[in-house]
C-alpha cells in the first residue's frame, strides 16, 4: 500500500478546489468546515502525509487526528481538477494503513478496531444481541431470494434498528423471499477498510464471503450504503477462494424502488414536506442518486424539496470512516451533522429522509443539539415507506 501512494502524493498542488461543491456555495469538506485550519483540508492532509513520509514532520497524535478526521466522503475526488483525483481517498487510506502498521493511531481508532475484532461490531455490544431487533424475522436459508444484510448500526443502534425493522416489514409485506444472518452476522468492514486496518478487513471480508458461499447466497440487500459499497467494490480483492462464486449486492433503496415499480408495494397518502440526504457511499461512491428520490416521489402526498447541496455535491453527515462512533468532528455548531440539519431545516422540510443508518444516528443527535426537535424529524426511507404502506 505504501508504494502506491508514496510515489504520487506530492502531486497535490493544494489548490483547494476540494473544499467546495461544484457551485462554490459553501464549504463541502466536512473536516475543513469543522476545523477551518488548512491542515484539515484534503490538500493539507496530503501535504502533511508527504511531509511525514519524508521525515519532515514527526508522527504525533495531532497528525493522526488530522488524518482520521477525514470522513472519506469523496467530495475531494468529485471536485479535484487533477487527473489523479480518483486516487485521493486511496492515498489517505494508504497513509492510514501505514499508521496502523506502525501502531501510531488515535486511541479512538484503536478502540474501534478492538471492538470490531472482539465483538464483531464497533459499538462493543454482545454478539448474542445482534439479532435482538429482529423479532421473529426468519434466518436466511439457501433458496431464499435475498440475504438481508443488516449491519452493525441496523443491528444495535436504536435508530438503526427502527430502519432495519421497517425494511424487514416492508419486504415481508411485498412478499419478498429473504432472511437474515442473525447473531451469525459479522461486521461488513467498510469502516475498518477506510480506517486502514487491512489485516482485520481481510479477515472480515473472508469470513463474510465464506458464510455467503456456504449459504449459497446469490443476492444481498444491505441496509447501509457502507456495507453495499464495501461488498460491491472491495470484497473481490479477497476472492481467491471464491473465484467461481458470485453474488449481486443491492442497496435496499434499489430493491424497494423495483418493488414499487412492479406494484408489489402499494403506497397510500403520507402528506409531508421531505428533503433527502445523499449518503456518500451510495451517491459519490456508487452513483445511486435517483432511486431514493423516486421512492419518495412515488408516495402520494410527499413533496420532495432539495437542499442546496445535493447529489454529487451533497454534504457528508460527518459519520464516515467510523466517525459515527468516534465522532472526531464533534463539538459545536460547525460539526458537519449540525450544519447539515440546519441546511435541511432551511428548505422548510419537516422530514429529513436518509438512506443510511449512519446518517440517521448522526442527524438524530444533531437535531437535538440544534434544538430542532419540534421542527424537523429524521427518518429512514424504509420507515417512510412502511408508514405509507397501503392497507388495501
Amino acid at each position, binding site marked *: 500500500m505504501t508504494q502506491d501512494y508514496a*510515489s504520487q502524493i*506530492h*502531486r*497535490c*498542488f*493544494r*489548490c*483547494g*478546489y476540494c*473544499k*467546495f461543491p461544484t*457551485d*462554490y*456555495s*459553501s464549504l463541502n469538506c466536512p473536516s475543513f468546515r469543522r*476545523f*477551518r*485550519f*488548512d*491542515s484539515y483540508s484534503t490538500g*493539507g492532509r496530503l*501535504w*502533511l502525509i508527504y*511531509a511525514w513520509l519524508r521525515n*519532515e*514532520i*514527526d508522527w*504525533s497524535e*495531532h*497528525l493522526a487526528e*488530522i488524518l482520521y478526521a477525514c470522513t472519506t466522503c469523496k467530495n475531494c475526488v468529485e471536485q479535484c*481538477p*487533477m*487527473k*489523479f483525483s480518483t486516487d485521493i481517498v486511496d492515498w489517505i487510506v494508504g497513509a492510514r494503513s501505514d499508521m496502523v502498521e506502525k501502531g501510531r493511531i488515535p486511541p479512538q481508532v484503536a478502540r474501534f478496531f478492538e471492538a470490531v475484532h472482539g465483538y464483531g461490531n464497533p459499538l462493543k455490544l454482545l454478539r448474542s444481541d445482534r439479532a435482538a431487533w429482529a423479532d421473529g424475522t426468519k434466518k436466511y436459508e439457501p433458496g431464499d431470494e435475498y440475504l438481508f444484510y443488516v449491519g452493525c448500526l441496523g443491528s444495535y443502534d436504536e435508530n438503526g434498528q427502527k430502519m432495519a425493522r421497517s425494511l424487514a416489514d416492508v419486504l415481508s409485506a411485498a412478499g419478498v423471499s429473504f432472511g437474515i444472518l442473525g447473531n451469525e452476522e459479522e461486521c461488513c468492514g467498510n469502516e475498518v477498510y477506510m480506517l486502514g486496518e487491512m489485516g482485520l478487513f481481510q479477515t472480515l471480508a473472508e469470513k463474510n464471503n465464506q458464510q455467503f458461499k456456504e449459504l449459497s447466497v446469490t443476492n444481498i440487500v444491505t441496509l447501509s450504503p457502507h456495507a453495499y459499497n464495501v461488498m460491491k467494490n472491495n470484497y473481490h480483492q479477497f476472492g481467491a477462494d471464491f473465484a467461481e462464486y458470485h453474488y449481486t449486492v443491492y442497496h435496499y433503496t434499489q430493491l424497494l424502488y423495483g418493488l414499487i415499480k412492479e406494484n408489489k408495494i402499494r403506497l397510500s397518502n403520507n402528506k409531508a414536506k421531505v428533503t433527502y440526504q445523499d449518503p456518500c457511499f451510495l451517491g459519490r461512491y456508487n452513483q445511486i442518486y435517483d432511486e431514493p428520490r423516486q421512492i419518495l416521489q412515488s408516495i402520494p402526498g410527499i413533496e420532495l424539496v432539495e437542499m442546496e447541496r445535493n447529489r454529487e455535491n451533497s454534504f457528508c453527515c460527518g459519520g464516515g470512516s467510523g466517525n459515527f462512533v468516534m465522532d472526531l468532528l464533534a*463539538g*459545536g455548531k460547525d460539526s458537519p451533522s449540525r450544519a447539515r440539519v440546519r441546511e435541511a431545516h432551511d428548505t422548510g422540510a419537516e422530514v429529513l429522509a436518509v438512506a443510511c443508518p449512519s446518517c440517521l444516528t448522526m442527524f438524530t443527535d444533531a437535531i437535538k443539539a440544534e434544538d430542532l426537535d419540534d421542527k424537523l424529524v429524521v427518518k429512514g426511507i424504509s420507515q417512510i415507506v412502511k408508514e405509507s404502506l397501503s392497507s388495501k
Partner: protein
Amino acid sequence: MSDIYATLQEIVGKDYVSNQAEERYFYGRDPGLMPPHEPDYVVMPRTTEEVQEIIRLANKEKVAVVPKGAGLSLTGLVIPQIGGIVMDMKRMEGIEVNEAGRYVIVEGGVTHAALKSHLQKNYPHLRHSIPDSPPIATIVANAVIHGQGRLTQQRGFNSDMVSGLEVVLPTGEVCRIGSCAVSSYWFSKGPPMPDLSGLFLGWFGTTGVITRLGMKLYPCKKMRDVMLYITDRAELIPDIIRKLSHTEMMEDIVVSCAPLPLRFKGVFNMLVYITGDSEEELEFKRKMAWDALREYFESRDGGFMGVSPYMKPSLLAMPSKDTTRFADVSKGGGFEYSGPIAPIEKYPQYVKKLEELASKYNLFYSSAARVIDGGHSMMFSFSYTFNRADPDTMNRAKTALDEAAEFALDEGGVIWKPNLNEQRMVMERMDPNTLKLLGKIKQLLDPNGIMNPGNWEAK
C-alpha cells in the same frame, strides 16, 4: 504554554489558534518555489476587534504578523520570513451588497468562490472580476497583490475596482479609507479626496491588515461566449490586441501558448470573450471582432477557429480549472510563474525568452498573457512546471524564473506579485527617491517592523 499562545487563545478562542507542528508546517510554505519558514503560531480571528487585539499583542511582544488569504500567490508572499504569527483571515466571511450602488463590502477572508456564489444566488444581474486562481483565493488578498480577473481588460487591475477599505494599522488603530471614511457609502477608494488606498494595496500586508474591502460590481450580462483566434506569428500579437481592444467590446482577451498538445505548438491562441444580453448583441460583437481582424484573415496570417462544444464549458468557466491543471501536466504537482506587467509591444520578445529558458533548463512551459485596462499593458506569465519530488527540477525552474524576471525588467516590465528576490530586483532599479519614500511610509506606519517582515523592505 507561552504567554503569547495563551493570549491568542483568549482573543479568538482555543479552537482557532495553533502552535502545533502540523499547522506550523503547512502555513510555513506555499505551492511555489520559495524556501519555507514556519510561523510560531497560526491564528484565525473572526472580527476586526480581534485583529486589533492581535496586532496590539504583536507590538507589545515585538512579534511578526503575516496576514494570509489562501496563500496562492506562488511567490511566497505569506511565508513568515522570521516566524511569528500567521493571521489566517478565512473566518472573516461577511458579505454585504449595495445593489443600487453596485458595490460589495467583504470581510477580509471572503473568497472569490463565496462572492461568486452569493451574487449568482441573490444578485444574478451583478458580477465581480473573477481571477483564474482557484476559488479559495480571497478578494482582499487578490486586491492586495493587484490581481487580475475576467474584467481586467475592461476595468483594470482588480485593485482598481476597490471602492473602500477598513484597515487595522500596524499600531492597532482601525482606519477607513475612501468615501467610507466620511460617509456610510463605499463608492470610492479615494477620489475626490487624496487616495490613501495606495498605502495598502500592493504592499503585501506590510502596512496593515485589511479587515473589510469595498469592491465594485458590474452588470452581469445574460450571455457569454468565447472566440478563439489563432496565429503563428508572435510579432503580430501586439497589433491584433490593439485592433481588438479598439472595439471596446471585448470582456477579456488572453493570449496563450504552450508546446503541447502538438497541434498547438508554435501557435498563439487568443481567447476573446464577449458578453451580451441577447444573441443579437453577441453576434454584433462577433462581427466587430471579425471586422477588426479582417486584414490578417485576408493575408492568411491568422483566423478565428471554431470552438468545439467540448472545449467551450472549460474555456468559459470562472475560475478556470485549466490554470490549476497546469501544475500537474508533468505529474509533479508544481508550477510557478514570473508575471511581469509589461508593454504589449514586448510580447514577441517575451515569448522568445520563455521558449529559450524552457529549452535551456529543460522545463515544460506555458504562457498566458492577459490584456489590462483596454490595452495599456499586459500581464505576461513565464510559467514553468516542476516536480515537487525532484529537487533538480525545482532548482532549474527557480533559476529560469529568476532569469525571466531579470529579462522582463530589462525589457521594460515590472514584476507582478514579486517574491523576495524579485522585490530586490525591482527596488534596485527603482528611482532612489521613490525607494526612500517607500521606506519612509513603511517606517511611519509600522514603527516596530512587525508586519510581514522581509517584504518591500527598502534598505
